[in-house]
């Protein structure tokens, strides 16, 4: 029951929000309430169910990594829902927003709890297409453009995805997601199928080189939607990867190295590019790409085969959890500085600071904990170049800190309202801060063996009290923060743009669009020429009409008939007929 409620409640909420005035008014609570079953599933282990009547026989169940991510997702949707209720109070399209919000939520929950391909793909698609409505919400030209680029990329992703799924299901001979990784490990086509899936889900993850829609779309949406986009939905792609990846079963060095290097490219490239932005949300979006890079690296290690999946996958999930909550906190936080004033502002800054620290892996945060998971596995794997990667990972703390301190600075520039004011949506934000903080650092989410594998017998508190680790984290982050502060302080070093981004968000999409525009014009012209050409090609019936309708034809045929009517010609005909018949009768 709880499984179905998880999906059905958000759907009901969506329709409730759009059709009933009461639903529009109380949308915040309704949407938040709709996430509760998912929250329950995230916290409490419930045995899976089979729904033979749904799609092509559906199965719903959870495993540890997915439960962690479901919990994350549920928290984000609940708080974002609550947040949106007051954030969009005066928005004319509020009902519509809730509608798409609910649908997307249903898709997001559904894909996480699905254990078979069909329902997974169904909910994945629902989430993908419904979130279009969230991205385009403001209807500004830039939002429209972002949404449309998002849609095109999403469809491309879906196409790769469905191909991967066809092949995977065919080779597994089963619709169960759990059967796919072993089948891929066995199949000679396994790497190819996985590569297709890598691309298909890569769009959603924002992996290099498929990410460029993301810095456009995530900032375009209203703050709560950006939060779930960047915090929760982006993880759906990751979950997809985890479903396909035969972690611990294969040794695909090439794919492994590919993922790791793409991951690191994202980690650094996105972080550096993000510095050029002036919109804090674009900045965050690049940070998301960068952080997803880390998760890509982790999964890439898994493909090398020397880390058991039961250790690696929960670790990735936990990393995602930390990033998700923190990132959502920051995204929703972008709406705060203009509204929060006075004493509340302190709380706001603390929260934002914690969020930033957590993402960067700062001392005493969940980030430190999750990042050390990465380090552990990088240290354990025998993947070629693992040492270098370790170094790169350490370096990434600097770039992340740089990027996010830039983010804080961008927020800092926003003018605060006077007086001790806090909007209603400040409360869900604080709730998110608390919930995220609590669950990231609580050991309850992780399986015991992973816990002990990482922190040894001493337990997690000991880990957090480890001075050396905290110190390392502290100084690496400090480097970034100090560089930022330094450059801001000295004008001739202040290269940071203030009004317009020095490089446009979405980076090389512009190259693509530019090239596309150059190609598209002649292409479109060519195709429309072709189209008019095709239209002007007469079909068989047209050719017949031309012949039958022409005056000339009718003149010729009536002249011929007139000839046949003449007695002389009949006589000649008689004679000829006579002769031939005579000949053939002999």
């Amino acid at each position, binding site marked *: 029951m709880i499984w179905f409620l998880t999906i059905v409640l958000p759907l009901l909420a969506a329709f409730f929000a759009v059709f009933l005035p009461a639903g529009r008014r109380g949308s915040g609570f309704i949407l938040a309430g709709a996430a509760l079953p998912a929250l329950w599933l995230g916290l409490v282990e419930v045995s899976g169910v089979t729904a033979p009547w749904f*799609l092509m026989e559906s199965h719903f169940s959870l495993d540890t990594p997915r439960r962690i991510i479901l919990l994350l997702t549920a928290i984000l949707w609940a708080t974002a829902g609550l947040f949106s209720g007051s954030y969009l109070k005066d928005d004319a399209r509020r009902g519509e927003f809730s509608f798409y919000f609910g649908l997307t939520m249903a898709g997001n929950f559904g894909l996480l709890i699905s254990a078979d391909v069909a329902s997974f793909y169904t909910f994945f698609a629902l989430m993908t*297409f419904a979130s279009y409505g969230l991205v385009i919400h403001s209807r500004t030209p830039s939002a429209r453009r972002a949404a449309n680029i998002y*849609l095109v990329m999403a469809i491309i992703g*879906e196409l790769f995805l469905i191909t991967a799924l*066809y092949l995977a299901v065919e080779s597994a001979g089963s619709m169960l997601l759990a059967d796919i990784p072993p089948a891929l490990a066995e199949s000679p086509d396994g790497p190819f199928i996985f590569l297709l899936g890598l691309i298909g889900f890569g769009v959603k993850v924002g992996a290099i080189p498929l990410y460029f829609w993301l810095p456009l779309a995530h900032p375009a949406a209203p703050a709560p939607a950006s939060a779930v986009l960047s915090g929760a939905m982006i993880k759906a792609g990751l979950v997809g990867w985890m479903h396909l990846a035969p972690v611990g079963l294969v040794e695909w060095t090439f794919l492994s190295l590919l993922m790791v290097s793409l991951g690191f490219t994202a980690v650094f490239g996105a972080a550096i590019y993000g510095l050029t932005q002036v919109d804090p949300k674009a900045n965050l979006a690049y940070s998301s790409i960068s952080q997803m890079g880390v998760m890509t690296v982790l999964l890439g290690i898994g493909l090398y085969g020397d880390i058991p999946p039961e250790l690696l996958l929960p670790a990735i999930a936990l990393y995602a959890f930390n990033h998700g909550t923190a990132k959502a906190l920051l995204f929703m936080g972008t709406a705060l500085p203009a509204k929060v004033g006075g004493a509340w502002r302190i709380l706001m800054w603390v929260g934002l600071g914690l969020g930033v620290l957590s993402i960067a892996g700062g001392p005493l945060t969940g980030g430190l904990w999750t990042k050390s998971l990465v380090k552990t596995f990088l240290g354990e794997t025998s993947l070629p170049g693992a040492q270098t990667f370790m170094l790169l990972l350490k370096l990434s703390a600097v770039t992340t800190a740089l990027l996010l301190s830039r983010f804080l600075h961008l927020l800092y520039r926003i003018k605060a309202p006077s007086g001790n004011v806090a909007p209603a949506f400040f409360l869900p934000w604080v709730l998110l801060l608390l919930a995220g903080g609590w669950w990231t650092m609580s050991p309850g989410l992780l399986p015991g063996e992973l816990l002990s594998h990482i922190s040894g017998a001493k337990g997690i508190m000991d880990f957090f009290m480890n001075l050396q680790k905290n110190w390392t984290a502290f100084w690496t982050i400090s480097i970034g923060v100090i560089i930022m502060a330094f450059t801001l302080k000295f004008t001739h070093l202040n290269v940071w743009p203030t009004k317009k981004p020095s490089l446009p968000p979405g980076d090389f999409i512009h190259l693509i669009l530019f090239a596309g525009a150059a190609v598209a014009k002649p292409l479109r012209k060519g195709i429309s020429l072709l*189209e008019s050409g095709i239209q002007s090609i007469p079909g068989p019936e047209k050719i017949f009409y031309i012949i039958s309708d022409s005056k000339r034809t009718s003149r010729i045929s009536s002249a011929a008939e007139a000839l046949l009517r003449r007695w002389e010609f009949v006589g000649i005909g008689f004679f000829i007929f006579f002769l031939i018949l005579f000949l053939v009768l002999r």
Partner: protein
Amino acid sequence: METTSFLPLLILISSLVPGIMILLLREEQFAMRTFLNLFGAVAKVALVGWVFAGYLSGEEYNFIFRLAPDLTFALRLDALGLFFAALSSALWLITTLYAIGYLEGGLHRNRFFAFFSLCVTASTGIALSGNVITFFIFYEFLTLSTYPLVVHKGTDEAVAAGRTYLWYTIGGGTILFLGVVGLYAVAGPIYFGQTEIIASLISEYPTQLTILFFLVLAGLGVKAAIFPLHGWLPVSMVAPAPVSALLHAVAVVKAGAFGIVRLVYDVYGIGVAEEMNFLSVLAVFAAFTIIYGSVRALYQNDFKKRLAYSTVSQISYIALGVAIPGALTSTGAIVHLVHQGLMKITMFFAAGNVAETYGHKKISELNGIGRRMPLTMGAFTIAAFGMIGVPPVAGFISKWYLGLGAVEAGSYWVVLVFLASSALNAAYFLPIVYRAWFCEPDHEVVERLRSGRLETQALLLIPVVVTGILSLTSGLFAAVTGSPLSIAREIIEKFYLL
């Protein structure tokens, strides 16, 4: 074959007789006409349901009448036929309701509804026919009964469209005739399912049977709108919306597609068709049509014309499914018969509603229509997503089976065709959806409805909502017994076990 039952005949009569009676009515006898229409439609649905239930419990229904030596009129019910009959009769009922609303106050309603009924008689006849010749009889009867519907408006454009329609269909019919006679000449009377006849003759008459296969295929290909025989379809969308809906979703194109299914599975048999490489030819044509129709659809600004080209493309899914040997593709093909019908009828209803309520016929006029007609466009959106193959709409189920089957058969190029088609479908359907929901109207529209009033007449609205919901649920609950998918699976099991 021994038992004779008049039930199949009764199914035909349930629309034939009302059709003829309506023809004799006076134009203003609205109540009588509506009664006859609905009575026939409901009776047909009930009868088909009854027979279906009987069939499932093992009853056999045959009706045989000899017209001339080895020219036997035979109605015989099998799962595939009943499947199609159920689709026809159910959608007929819905379309009748729609048409009553659509033509309210229009001209020549008697003629319209009479031929409407005859048209459905023909398509159920096609479904129930037990042998090749009976199939042919109804196939041609369908051509004749749809012609007055295509030219119904009587405008010059409609009449010209009717001309093209006839050239194609009669031409196809004649070629089919040649093929059918040839089959009878070579193999004698062929009842559907007697694939052993051809199988035993194929080694003796390979050339003849090859030529005949392609003659029959070409004849059927006209109605199934396979390139290059599709020219009539985009033209004949000038007909009133319920007619387009019926032509595109149920009656005409499906008759062709259904015929192809019969030809391959029930006349030649999959084994022979595969062995002789007939199927690969069919596959190439079908694949080309899928892409071609989609590309052409991209460039149509006329709403119904875009839908028409989309039909060209979608119907070839069925042909392609048939052409790729394997149980999965076959299931996909057969289930797509129904799924495409549901989705396409929804789309045409929606297009009709928009045109009828606001007069918009061009896609460029559809900005913001979703806000004014949320239910209509909601149904349209569901159907559009289904056409693209987005789950959980019905179209996904078909595409899933087709794609998976193609992978299983090792025909990877077919998968690419499906993908390209999906992309193209998205490229021409999503702009409509985008305009409807996310664009502001270009000009001021009289807001004729708000506060409790329906967005359009109830009789126009209910059918589109019903078919929209059906498109969704037949995908969503595809695994439930009685769903199109489950029936298609049963049908296919039979073919592959035999």
